[in-house]
């Protein structure tokens, strides 16, 4: 038992580190995301993506002919760890390269692959994923955006929601209902959609946190060529499953302030001696440490060339709830003053207050706590799925609301 790289892993880590260090700055006090304008940040992100792609590092596990490195999952983890040590402008390409393009590779024609893959890898074109709808979140197969065949084109009408990066994306993969007369999972079809065409309108969502990072996207008589279909008509659910399975291996750090930040704050605030706080701090440490170490168990499997176990599925349940709890405690520790959200008046630049309002979203995005627990109980523990009323009836006869 040890935490060391193998010789090969160490060599790759050095290779990765040396390359990244030539292009990026180590993490400083203020991340560049906060110091740059949106446009400048996007420019920096595109430049970094191009540099990585040109050198073959944009997708470590992809084959070389797809613009990848031809490496192992473990090498991808090592790359992410090394890149994570630097102030990397990574965001805009994550969904496209992590979910959309793998779907294009799996179901697209040779023309699609030729047209889209390289440009996405180089960061010249950005993709988004258009699945969720106002009445189809956890139950995404209940979506209502419809596509009607018109000659060799389809006409799309409907609304998508919680689409990350829709306003700056060039293309998207779009899941729509092509047949409402059959059961819900059988009437779906997947398309590639040009996000810059007429009839596609991305509007920012005003989130409960006050920010506007996500979009809703309206489709009004948008025309898509039948040749831009991914998979067969009615096979969209199968295609979507492949998209969702390609979600990247979670190797990110904590999504906000953790036990060490609230401990530092408590020391400054003089509340470190409070017995109730000390007990909570111990709980937070144990859970956070437990999850970090769980990721090392997953990496161990990858390092040995094995398929990781299901243990990593605990991740977001732990991190999102803990973030919410830590922020709540930090605010209460500040008493009445803890209400203030103005950065220049507040300890830690009001990070606890900011994350307090972000945490509820984190418990929902990418699978709610409840859906994740269903997944653990069904796929890991082998308990039965729910008795369903919506599997066999035609979609247009189901109750919705």
């Amino acid at each position: 038992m040890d935490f060391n790289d193998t010789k090969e892993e160490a060599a790759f880590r050095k290779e990765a580190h040396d390359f990244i260090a030539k292009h990026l700055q180590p993490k400083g006090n203020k991340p560049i995301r906060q110091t740059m304008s949106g446009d400048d940040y996007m420019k920096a992100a595109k430049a970094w993506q191009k540099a990585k792609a040109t050198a073959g590092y944009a997708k470590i596990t992809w084959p070389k002919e797809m613009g990848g490195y031809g490496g192992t999952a473990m090498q991808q983890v090592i790359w992410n760890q090394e890149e994570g040590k630097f102030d990397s402008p990574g965001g805009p390409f994550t969904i496209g390269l992590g979910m959309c393009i793998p779907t294009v590779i799996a179901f697209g024609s040779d023309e699609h692959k030729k047209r889209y893959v390289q440009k996405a890898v180089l960061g010249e074109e950005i993709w988004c994923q258009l699945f969720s709808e106002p009445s189809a979140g956890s139950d995404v197969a209940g979506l209502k955006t419809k596509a009607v065949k018109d000659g060799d084109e389809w006409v799309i009408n409907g609304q998508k929601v919680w689409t990350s990066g829709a306003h700056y994306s060039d293309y998207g993969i779009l899941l729509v209902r092509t047949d409402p007369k059959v059961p819900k999972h059988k009437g779906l079809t997947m398309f590639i959609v040009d996000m810059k065409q007429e009839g596609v309108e991305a509007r920012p969502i005003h989130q409960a946190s006050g920010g506007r990072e996500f979009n809703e996207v309206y489709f009004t008589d948008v025309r898509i060529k039948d040749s831009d279909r991914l998979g067969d008509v009615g096979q969209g659910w199968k295609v979507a499953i492949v998209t969702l399975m390609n979600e990247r291996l979670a190797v990110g750090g904590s999504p906000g302030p953790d036990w060490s930040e609230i401990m530092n704050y408590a020391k400054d605030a003089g509340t470190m001696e409070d017995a109730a706080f000390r007990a909570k701090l111990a709980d937070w440490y144990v859970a956070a440490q437990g999850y970090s170490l769980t990721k090392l168990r997953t990496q161990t499997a990858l390092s040995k060339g094995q398929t990781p176990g299901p243990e990593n599925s605990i991740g977001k349940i732990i991190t999102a709830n803990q973030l919410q709890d830590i922020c709540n405690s930090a605010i209460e520790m500040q008493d009445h003053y803890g209400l203030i959200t103005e950065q220049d008046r507040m300890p830690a630049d009001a990070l606890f207050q900011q994350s307090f309002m972000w945490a509820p979203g984190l418990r929902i995005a990418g699978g709610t706590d409840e859906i994740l627990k269903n997944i653990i109980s069904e796929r890991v523990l082998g308990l039965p799925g729910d008795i369903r009323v919506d599997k066999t009836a035609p979609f247009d006869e189901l109750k919705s609301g």
Partner: protein
Amino acid sequence: MNFDFSEDQKFLGNEARKFLESSCTSAVVRGVLNDDDVSHDADLWKKIVEMGWLGAAIPEENGGLGLGMLEMCVLAEEMGRVLAPVPFASTAYFFTEAVKLGDKSQQAEYFPGIVNGDIIGCYAASEGPGAPNAANLTTELKGGKISGTKIPVTDGDIATHAVVLVKDGSGSSLVLVDLQGEGVTRNTVKTLDPTRSHAEITFKDAPATLLGKSGDGARLNEDLLNRVAVLLAFEQLGGASRALEMAKDYALERYAFGKPIGGNQAIKHKLADIYVKNEIARSNCFYGAWALSTGAAELPEAAAASRLAASEAFWFASKENIQTHGGMGFTWEVDCHLYYRRAKLLAVQAGAPPVWKEKLVRALETKNAA
């Protein structure tokens, strides 16, 4: 990255599981549970001695197998799964690890007897409600002899030897005492976990030998408990894993309202919560095992995190296992309560979670200040 047990260690665990599943059945555990005069399963204990498990982490020069702490962790998990009603933890963790804090001649004196089963150890620290420390101890060392009363002492009625935390001048010391010698009287004590025997031990001028230096008891006791905590955490992990399996199996076979109760989200989410806590415990336990086996400076926080995560996991799994079983779970005949009982023994016998939370935070403060 190699944050896992080796293939050999996993093989040892599998072999141990096979042996224990056939030799330490529910009926064996209940043999001890249901008879106040039976302190442990002597037959199982004999077999465990014969297989050499007590010497897994004792050097070959002292008669042990000379394997290591990782192997002992693997065995501990298996012992925890089956609620083994034998003084394994008292002898192989508490007493053996205490002797490792002593000098070479003490190790030569005690290790061979531990390995061949002549010595059954125990750990005597508690004297009353609350965690024992130098300020509240009354059992005292004077002129090489100790006097005072320890209660409860797990396996204290069958042990041949004890490691005892005593007041020594203005501080404390750890001493070894031959319980078969003069000045020792013992009474059994009833506890929440009757599958392991407990005693009140009264010492009256009982001869004792120091472990390490006089007055160094607080530090030595910390060192000892850090090492024992990791091993106990593996027992807790084994128990928590087994409790989850029991709950899952029952949820699949028990029908209510025309379907298995495991199809209800209230049950599914409960079991998912157990799974999450068990995985958090497993990962922390692995780290504790690493720190224990390598002598890492991180042992204090790793041991505390293992113990806290595993105590929480076993407590939660054992109580929700009863809940999942419904009325059946509250009967004497179904094994759920045995796990609930053992979970509490393991959570308090080397310092309860509140004590370890404070230790952990102090370790984090020390680290942070450095």
